[in-house]
């Protein structure tokens, strides 16, 4: 009998030993459920380089151009504080009044600061755009990150797909263009993660802009009976070629997911033609698509796919390199678009409104001293290359997020690399992500910072 017991227990242990690593590798056995704080996360990468002085510090023209008494808050949806009362140039233009003199009315009844958690002074990890965006998505300072290459370290999408078992169509990156390395941000080329765990991605100005309309909008819509043999043939041919995971050159959705995404693209073009894509009330002054356009398509993706994780990038404020007035206008509109997105989720997507966390953070700041370029108001422009450009803020609001203001100008708390651990914490895979070895060792969840 003892021998039989021994054999039975040994066999059970050996079986568990074989199966457990397989389960743990994908993480699906333990990740869902756990201590999740929310079921959806929207990360707004408030990018382009946001100067601390004109945003969270609310000093408007006082710090930047030396105009005494011209301080005030030009981001009324995000931060508490009264608007400036002089030299208003960032609003909309009304006939007979100076250009930009009418601030856009606040959309949210309560600012995001007063509903959520504001980290007033956070340390950025770089003063450049692409590395900054990498930091937001990988949780690593990415000092050796090259341009025109995929992130070297796994992105939050890959962590979530591998350790929380999310599907490709549950993870989305919305880029604001295909320039530079932007369309490569949906996945790293890391050998342990990579495209097999990457996110879906659109760059709305291209995908849904004039090029997209010309190339995609005329496509045939196949019914399921027509699609099935096409997929059968593709599947047969793919089995015969059998690519290894390391040879993947793209994110891969299932056939059902691909069909759904294609249908979504067709519907977007149909809605465009009918003028039915909801947009923030005020878009860019010059008529170019701008940040509001990108955020509107992010909202469409939210409504259709209800992704577990969506990151959307904007970058209009980078006009600050050569035009300070345009920068102020873009900052005010980015605030407006951010407020609109949160309001849209609350009012139009009831399934997720109470279980979503909205995170907003710039990827870098801007310089303390200006460059010599003057704009139409004789105001100096600012680049991003000095220590002041390492100063940023972050905001978080939604399910299980306490209302509090953390840190300040003389008391910096947190790093931009905290964003990925925070999202991992929200979805209950914090330990797996921190143990991956790819996260900034000084990073931690923003929930743990307080």
């Amino acid at each position, binding site marked *: 009998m003892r021998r039989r017991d021994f054999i039975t227990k040994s066999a059970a242990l050996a079986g568990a030993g074989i199966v457990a690593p397989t389960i743990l590798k994908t993480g699906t056995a333990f990740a869902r459920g756990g201590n999740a704080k929310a079921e959806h996360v929207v990360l707004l990468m408030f990018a382009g380089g946001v100067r601390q002085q004109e945003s969270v510090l609310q000093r408007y023209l006082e710090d930047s151009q030396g105009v005494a008494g011209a301080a005030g808050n030009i981001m009324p949806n995000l931060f508490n504080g009264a608007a400036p009362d002089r030299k208003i140039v960032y609003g909309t233009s009304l006939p007979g009044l100076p250009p930009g003199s009418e601030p856009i009315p606040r959309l949210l009844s309560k600012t995001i600061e007063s509903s959520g958690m504001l980290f007033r002074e956070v340390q950025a990890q770089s003063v450049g755009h692409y590395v900054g965006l990498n930091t937001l998505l990988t949780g690593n300072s990415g000092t050796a990150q090259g341009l025109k290459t995929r992130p070297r370290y796994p992105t939050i999408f890959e962590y979530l797909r591998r350790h929380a078992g999310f599907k490709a169509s549950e993870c989305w990156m919305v880029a604001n263009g295909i320039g530079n390395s932007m369309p490569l941000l949906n996945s790293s080329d890391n050998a342990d993660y990579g495209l097999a765990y990457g996110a879906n991605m*659109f760059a709305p100005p291209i995908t849904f802009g004039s090029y997209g309309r010309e190339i995609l909008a005329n496509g045939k819509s196949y019914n399921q009976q027509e699609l099935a043999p096409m997929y059968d043939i593709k599947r047969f041919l793919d089995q015969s070629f059998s690519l290894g995971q390391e040879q993947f050159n793209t994110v891969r959705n299932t056939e059902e997911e691909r069909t759904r995404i294609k249908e979504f693209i067709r519907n977007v073009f149909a809605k465009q033609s009918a003028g039915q894509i909801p947009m923030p009330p005020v878009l860019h002054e010059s008529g170019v698509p701008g940040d509001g356009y990108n955020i509107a398509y992010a909202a469409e993706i939210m409504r259709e796919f209800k992704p577990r994780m969506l990151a959307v990038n904007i970058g209009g404020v980078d006009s600050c390199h050569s035009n300070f007035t345009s920068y102020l206008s873009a900052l005010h509109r980015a605030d407006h678009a951010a407020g609109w997105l949160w309001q849209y989720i609350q009012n139009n997507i009831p399934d997720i409104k109470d279980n979503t966390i909205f995170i907003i953070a710039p990827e870098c700041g801007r310089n303390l001293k200006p460059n010599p370029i003057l704009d139409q108001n004789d105001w100096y422009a600012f680049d991003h290359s000095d220590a002041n450009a390492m100063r940023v803020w972050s905001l978080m609001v939604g399910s299980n997020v306490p209302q509090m203001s953390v840190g300040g100008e003389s008391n910096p708390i947190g790093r931009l690399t905290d964003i990925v651990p925070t999202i991992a914490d929200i979805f209950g895979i914090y330990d797996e992500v921190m143990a991956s070895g790819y996260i900034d060792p000084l990073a931690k969840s923003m929930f743990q910072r307080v």
Partner: protein
Amino acid sequence: MLSFKTRVLSFCFLLALGSCKRETHVTFGVEEKGLYEDKALKTKNKNEAVYISVLYTNLYQTPISPSQLYKTQAVIYSIGDRNVANEMVLSNYFNTQGLNIPTNSAMRADVEAFVVDSYKRFFLRYPSEGEKTWMIQYINRNDQLSVEMIYTGFAASDEYQYY
């Protein structure tokens, strides 16, 4: 003593005699062969521009214009899942005039020839016997299957992304 003239003539005669050789025909046993790719050697991924150029030329039998190429490349680049992008581009092509592809009746008239031609057209190789058999049976079993559907499967396949 031979005269100078005789000497020169004799020298030229000897020179001409020595320079003549019988022409020999050398053959190396080379046979004419069609050259086709081997799928095992297709290791390089086509970038967007190559994929679109090859696909467009394949379907329309004419090169794509630079402007069309640029726009299509940008659109494919703007979509995360390249399979989704390729399938959308294909469905757009199949909704246009000017395609140079076999008719459905031509396919049904000689399914085996169609299958072999399709492999050569898309993959630049002959199908294996197994591939050919499966494909012929699949076409014969499905009355509603069209050339468009089969070509979409080929053009969207992994092998077509490599060279």
